[in-house]
């Protein structure tokens, strides 16, 4: 049994530990050797000692990617980990998609086959290196055996085993037949870090050369012989259904092939997307609007505010914070609100399905291949093993493709026709029928003593539970959703007397989902904004105020100091500009960000500069660390400034990039990323910058304008005098 990272090894208890101790984790705790293991099936290669590595007699080394690539660079990072221990060059390996298979490809932290939560590199760090080290050991053993020498006297260079004393050499490819006859060791030692040639060095990404010439095939680009193309209309009111469709006009249009119905949607099938879209516009659909036809944004917000009056479930309590606050010299309390958010990946939601009597093929990009397989099977009336999922490069995930409902919708339409059917959502349907990041309503309070020390702290968050729907086993026995209180229940600051509680409130009609940054992005905004409020109430500099509170988290203190130093914290700025700072420990990494903004006389917020200091433990590919932080910060700044999904009469009011707008090149400031050298275990990256962006910019707006914005998005918050 190979040692794998256990959930308990992670820095903080959180939603990613939800299956700890369950059967799923035990299954994942060994490097899987089933299914793909060619040695049982054939005596002639490839040599496949486990689910991740295949060495062919033709010299091709295929690395099977447990994690999906959606821009975060994990195919490069995971390939580096395996190439390092295999002693091959990154240029010698070919990454490939893992098929849906929970036994072989469950993420050992999640306990299921899913890419998300910034867990990939933490899950891969031990397991993929071990998988490669075992493969290398067998290949070296194969060489030593045929040369009749001690394996320890052999070394490997770029996939060639060498024995210095005899001068003998053999390529991995030539060793495959012998390797296939040898027993697999259960363990093999990992390299000492001083012998690393790849880990920690800047490497070119393995997935980008075909992304600059249009050759990469995303799910939306698949071309299957005989395929037709469809687009879908769903009831504009969330949860509504189709009552009747008059499709006479649509069917007369050139290029329109068919009109199909499911319970909550209508699809027009065409020879090309344009015909399908024109057909859709020509439909006359009578919708049964359902129970949410009167639902307004005010209802949603009032629902949360009312629910937040409840005591809630207590996630953590130390001392008697209510009494401490009552007796404090300075008391502060505030309400923070965060909106529903759509994901809006640049590749609109799409899925191609071919349903036959005996099975189905699915082509798409998904963060959850087995869920995609299950949704297609259910909709097509098949068993999961009858469904083949062909996963693809993903044109943006951000949590959207942790949902697989679109695969089920596509399959439900596709089973009505005999040809392969490519379903492409319009941008409007993509945004209006997303599953949304929850709305949050947080009440937070604290008391300061005469010296400006925090004597009591209470934080109660109210919102929907994604976990309860998406992964019920992830809920704690006491009913707490760990995601809802992540980074809040055990704050990085030393606060003697504190209480953190949670009220679950499910808004009617709205399905909520994971969104980049998940629980931390919500809680860190509230906590770091409120710490900033307390610093100002204590008449202290926000860096100086945080410093003594970070005694138990020296890595957080170090990045705080570094970000402050690199940003020129405290140096003079022009009138109308200001800097905001924040610090976090989330996803296994420590990050501090300073944001500098200008607030114009008209109340417009302009980003001037962003400085980040990151301690993510051992960086695998340092340039990918920078890239993920730059991108994650900009993704977060878009949402901090502009993003909000609102409802009116049960309908999502935003529809495309005009009403759900994105930060653009001319609004994007320079982003400087500073990485702390570290030999700690690698931490997650993809969501860190997004979580950090919200409080960094909100605190900067306060510094620039003197106005505290406690409600996202920020743009318009000053202009409207809020």
């Amino acid at each position, binding site marked *: 049994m190979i040692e794998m990272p256990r959930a308990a090894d992670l820095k903080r208890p959180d939603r990613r530990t939800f299956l700890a101790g369950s059967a799923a984790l035990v299954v994942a705790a060994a490097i899987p050797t089933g299914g793909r293991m060619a040695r049982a099936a054939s005596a002639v290669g490839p040599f496949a000692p486990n689910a991740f590595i295949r060495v062919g007699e033709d010299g091709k080394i295929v690395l099977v990617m447990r994690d999906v690539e*959606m*821009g*975060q660079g994990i195919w490069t990072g995971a390939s580096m980990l395996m190439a390092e221990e295999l002693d091959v060059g990154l240029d010698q390996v070919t990454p490939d998609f893992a098929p849906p298979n929970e036994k072989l490809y469950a993420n050992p932290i999640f306990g299921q086959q899913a890419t998300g939560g910034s867990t990939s590199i933490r899950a891969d760090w031990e397991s993929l290196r071990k998988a490669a080290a075992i493969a290398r050991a067998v290949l070296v053993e194969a060489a030593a055996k045929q040369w009749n020498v001690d394996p320890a006297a052999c070394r490997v260079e770029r996939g060639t085993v060498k024995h210095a004393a005899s001068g003998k050499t053999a390529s991995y490819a030539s060793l495959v037949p012998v390797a296939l006859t040898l027993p697999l060791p259960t363990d093999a030692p990992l390299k000492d870090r001083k012998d690393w040639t790849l880990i920690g060095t800047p490497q*070119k*990404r393995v*997935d*980008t*050369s075909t*992304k*600059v*010439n*249009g*050759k*990469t*095939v*995303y799910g*939306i*680009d698949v*071309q299957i012989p005989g395929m037709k*193309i469809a687009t879908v209309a769903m009831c504009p009111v969330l949860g509504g259904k189709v009552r009747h469709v008059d499709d006479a006009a649509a069917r007369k249009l*050139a*290029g329109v092939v068919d009109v199909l119905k499911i319970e909550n949607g209508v699809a027009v099938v065409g*020879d*090309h*997307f*344009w015909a399908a879209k024109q057909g859709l516009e020509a439909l006359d659909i009578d919708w049964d609007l359902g129970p949410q036809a009167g639902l307004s944004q005010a209802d949603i917000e009032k629902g949360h505010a009312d629910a937040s009056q409840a005591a809630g479930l207590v996630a953590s309590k130390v001392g008697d914070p209510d009494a401490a606050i009552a007796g404090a010299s300075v008391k502060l309390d505030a309400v923070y609100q965060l909106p529903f958010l759509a994901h*809006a*990946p*640049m*590749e*609109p939601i799409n899925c191609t399905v071919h349903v036959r009597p005996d099975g189905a093929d699915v082509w798409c990009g998904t963060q959850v291949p087995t869920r995609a397989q299950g949704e297609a099977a259910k909709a097509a009336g098949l068993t999961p093993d009858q469904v083949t999922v062909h996963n693809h*490069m*993903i*044109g*943006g*995930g*951000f949590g959207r493709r942790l949902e697989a409902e679109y695969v089920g919708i596509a399959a439900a339409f596709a089973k009505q026709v005999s040809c392969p059917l490519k379903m*492409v959502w*319009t*941008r409007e349907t993509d945004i209006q029928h997303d599953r949304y990041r929850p709305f949050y309503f947080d009440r937070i309070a604290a008391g300061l003593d005469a010296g400006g020390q925090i004597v009591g702290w209470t934080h109660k968050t109210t919102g929907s539970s994604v976990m309860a729907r998406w992964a019920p086993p992830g809920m704690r026995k006491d009913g707490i959703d760990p995601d809802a209180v992540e980074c809040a229940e055990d704050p990085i600051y030393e606060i003697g007397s504190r209480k953190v509680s949670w009220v679950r409130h499910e808004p009617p009609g709205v399905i909520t989902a994971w969104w980049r940054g998940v629980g931390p992005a919500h809680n860190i905004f509230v906590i770091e904004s409120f710490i900033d409020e307390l610093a100002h109430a204590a008449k202290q500099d926000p860096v100086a105020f945080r410093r003594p509170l970070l005694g138990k988290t020296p890595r957080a203190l170090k990045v705080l100091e570094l970000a402050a130093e690199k940003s020129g914290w405290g140096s003079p700025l022009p009138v109308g500009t200001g800097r905001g700072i924040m610090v976090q420990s989330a996803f296994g990494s420590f990050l501090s960000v300073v944001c500098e903004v200008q607030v114009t006389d008209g109340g417009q917020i302009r980003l001037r500069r962003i400085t980040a200091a990151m301690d993510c433990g051992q960086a695998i590919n340092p*340039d990918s660390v920078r*890239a993920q932080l*730059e*991108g*994650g*910060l*900009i*993704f977060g700044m*878009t949402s901090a400034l502009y993003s909000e999904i609102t409802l009116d009469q049960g309908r999502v009011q935003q529809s*495309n*990039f*005009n009403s759900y707008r*994105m*930060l*653009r*090149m*001319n609004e*994007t400031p*320079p*982003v400087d990323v500073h990485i702390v050298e570290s030999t700690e275990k690698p931490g997650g990256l993809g969501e860190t910058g997004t979580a950090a962006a919200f409080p960094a910019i909100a605190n900067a707006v306060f510094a620039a304008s003197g106005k505290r914005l406690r409600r996202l998005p920020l743009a318009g918050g000053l202009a409207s005098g809020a």
Partner: protein
Amino acid sequence: MLTLDINGEARQVEVPNDMPLLWVLRDVVGLMGTKFGCGIALCGCCTVHLDGEPVRSCLTAVSDAVGRKITTIEAIGGTPAGARIQKAWLDLEVVQCGYCQSGQIMSAAALLANNPSPSDVDIDTAMSGNICRCGTYPRIRAAIKHAATS
């Protein structure tokens, strides 16, 4: 029947005159490098060149492309500016998910072909119509400057 000059090749297509060039390229001709992002010229994913000028193919009627040279991401590497932009993109590791990058590269290649040393303002003007959800803008800016000086 319309005759189009796509990447130097004459292609005959039987489509309505008002069909957007994007869908002719993708669903009729089968060139999948040009991407659909928004359908209403807000995101720039579908950018192609007509006689060297960047246009949003999602709102360009195919009949307006007749008689003009259509260049897509598949062939932009055959132009000096396009080749330099693609190389700079890889040298500076601009790309993340990559979905928007066909359009970004087409906009950047047109900029560089017309302006050998673009300023920050020139870059903002040429590139602000292209959205990148992954947030690669700082690297796009740096890569355009890198391409201009390489």
